[in-house]
């Protein structure tokens, strides 16, 4: 575990976490701290509770239990002793600490006019450890290339949470901006200008505006910027050739993506969905898919601690969507969509026109 992250934990927790066996701490993914409840870690796609002497156990009764003091001190350190300065993050339920590690928060919400204003009485933390995996993207990138335009196709990376979407997109951004296309026909293309809209500060983990992860030489980062606005700002003023965004899913994101695409910018985005069916079931994503926006999809899955990827082109995705549509509509295949890709629910595609 990175030392900077270790320093965030209050002394009592740190002594426990420092004694975790090395094979677990090397593949550590999450540390879950819940006040007055057992300390849990997840590593190499399995989970364990931690005893006070750092050994791992499956029995939660034997686990170390963080108390109120530890949690309070941890919250202070995580928020840099300034809860008032991270109100916006509290409203969204997480803070990102230096190094790009995201800390999810659980507590009591305070409402203002019916929507969440911020969190108080925070008593649960999920520390997600960010790792740069240099070379993670080089296996995927050759499958995304658009040889005619000498760049990448519009790509959506899809997976369930915690499968490595952000890690992949980070390394893809690095490969693209430094020109490591990893394909014989792409030799000599050079790097492309990459613009990253880093709403959650996870991709670049910028500190004072400077990315702490290696993103190659031709990368611009809009840190902590809302995606929709950020995409427009990028297009207007930073002339990116490829825009990278994390976790799209809201209507305004889709509108902004459409703008960018029609401005001649390639898009590399991620979304939460366990498979393509989920993509077509989510209103905004299905609308984008129906418009034929994405040229390829990357599906991530995990088995035995290894991340597997599958690249699906838009045509295959369309076929899959049509198949699904038919199986839903029963024995009425003539109603199958004649558009390239069509959402299973026609109403999902009937949103307000924005392109």
């Amino acid at each position: 575990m990175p030392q900077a992250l270790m320093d965030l934990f209050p002394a009592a927790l740190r002594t426990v976490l420092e004694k975790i066996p090395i094979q677990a701490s090397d593949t550590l993914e999450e540390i879950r701290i819940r006040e007055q409840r057992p300390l849990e870690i997840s590593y190499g796609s399995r989970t364990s509770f931690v005893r006070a002497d750092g050994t791992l156990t499956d029995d939660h009764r034997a686990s170390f239990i963080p108390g109120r003091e530890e949690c309070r001190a941890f919250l202070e350190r995580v928020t840099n002793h300034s809860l008032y300065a991270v109100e916006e993050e509290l409203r969204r339920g997480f803070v990102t600490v230096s190094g790009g590690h995201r800390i999810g928060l659980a507590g009591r919400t305070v409402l203002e006019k019916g929507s969440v204003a911020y969190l108080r009485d925070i008593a649960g933390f999920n520390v997600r450890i960010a790792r740069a995996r240099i070379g993670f993207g080089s296996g995927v990138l050759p499958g995304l290339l658009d040889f005619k335009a000498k760049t990448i196709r519009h790509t959506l990376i899809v997976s369930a949470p915690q499968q490595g979407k952000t890690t992949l997109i980070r390394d893809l951004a690095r490969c693209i901006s430094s020109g490591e296309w990893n394909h014989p026909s792409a030799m000599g293309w050079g790097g492309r200008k990459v613009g990253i809209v880093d709403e959650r500060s996870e991709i670049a983990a910028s500190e004072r505006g400077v990315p702490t992860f290696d993103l190659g030489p031709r990368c611009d980062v809009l840190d902590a910027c809302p995606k929709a606005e950020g995409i427009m700002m990028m297009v207007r003023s930073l002339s990116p050739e490829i825009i990278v965004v994390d976790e799209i899913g809201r209507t305004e994101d889709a509108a902004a993506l459409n703008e960018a695409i029609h401005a001649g910018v390639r898009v590399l985005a991620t979304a939460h969905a366990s498979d393509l069916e989920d993509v077509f079931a989510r209103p905004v994503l299905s609308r984008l898919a129906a418009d034929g926006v994405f040229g390829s999809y990357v599906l991530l899955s995990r088995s035995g601690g290894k991340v597997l990827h599958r690249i699906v082109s838009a045509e295959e995705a369309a076929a899959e969507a049509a198949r699904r549509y038919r199986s839903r509509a029963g024995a009425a295949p003539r109603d199958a969509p004649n558009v390239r890709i069509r959402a299973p629910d026609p109403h999902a595609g009937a949103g307000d026109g924005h392109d």
Partner: protein
Amino acid sequence: MIKFAGILLILFAGTMIGFLQAAKFAARPRQIRQVLHALQRLETEISYGQTPLAEALSRISELVPVPMSRIFADISRSLRPEASGAGETVSECWQRAVNAGWPSTAMKEAEREAFLRLGATLGGSGREEQLKHIRLAMLQLQAEETTAREDQQRYEKLSRSLGVLGAALVVILLI
């Protein structure tokens, strides 16, 4: 001759004691005012700048004059992520710095109390609540400032003359 030198020494010492005492009476309201200015600045940093506490305090420490600036700088230093290996909370740092630095100021127990109470709440709540706490501390300090000014008017000159007169009394008694 020696007698004369002794008389001069006693007179000098008495006068000095009186002046020092008077200077303390004058310094107390001045320093309270400085703390008030510092808190006003902190209010701005929190409400408009949303500056992290460590940075806000280090900026303040450059603004206020010496005895208070040391306390602010001390707190800010121990809040910096690279320095806080021990994992102190704000209120612990605050308390330690105040206990160490307060004796070198002219301020009294009441101001210290108000200042410490503020330290126990800083950094631990949302913006609105932080501002309320700061304003409360400022109100208390303003009340102290008024009494400090009254004390100054009443006792500043008095202690100066008392010093000289006391020394004279000792001289007369000794002769």
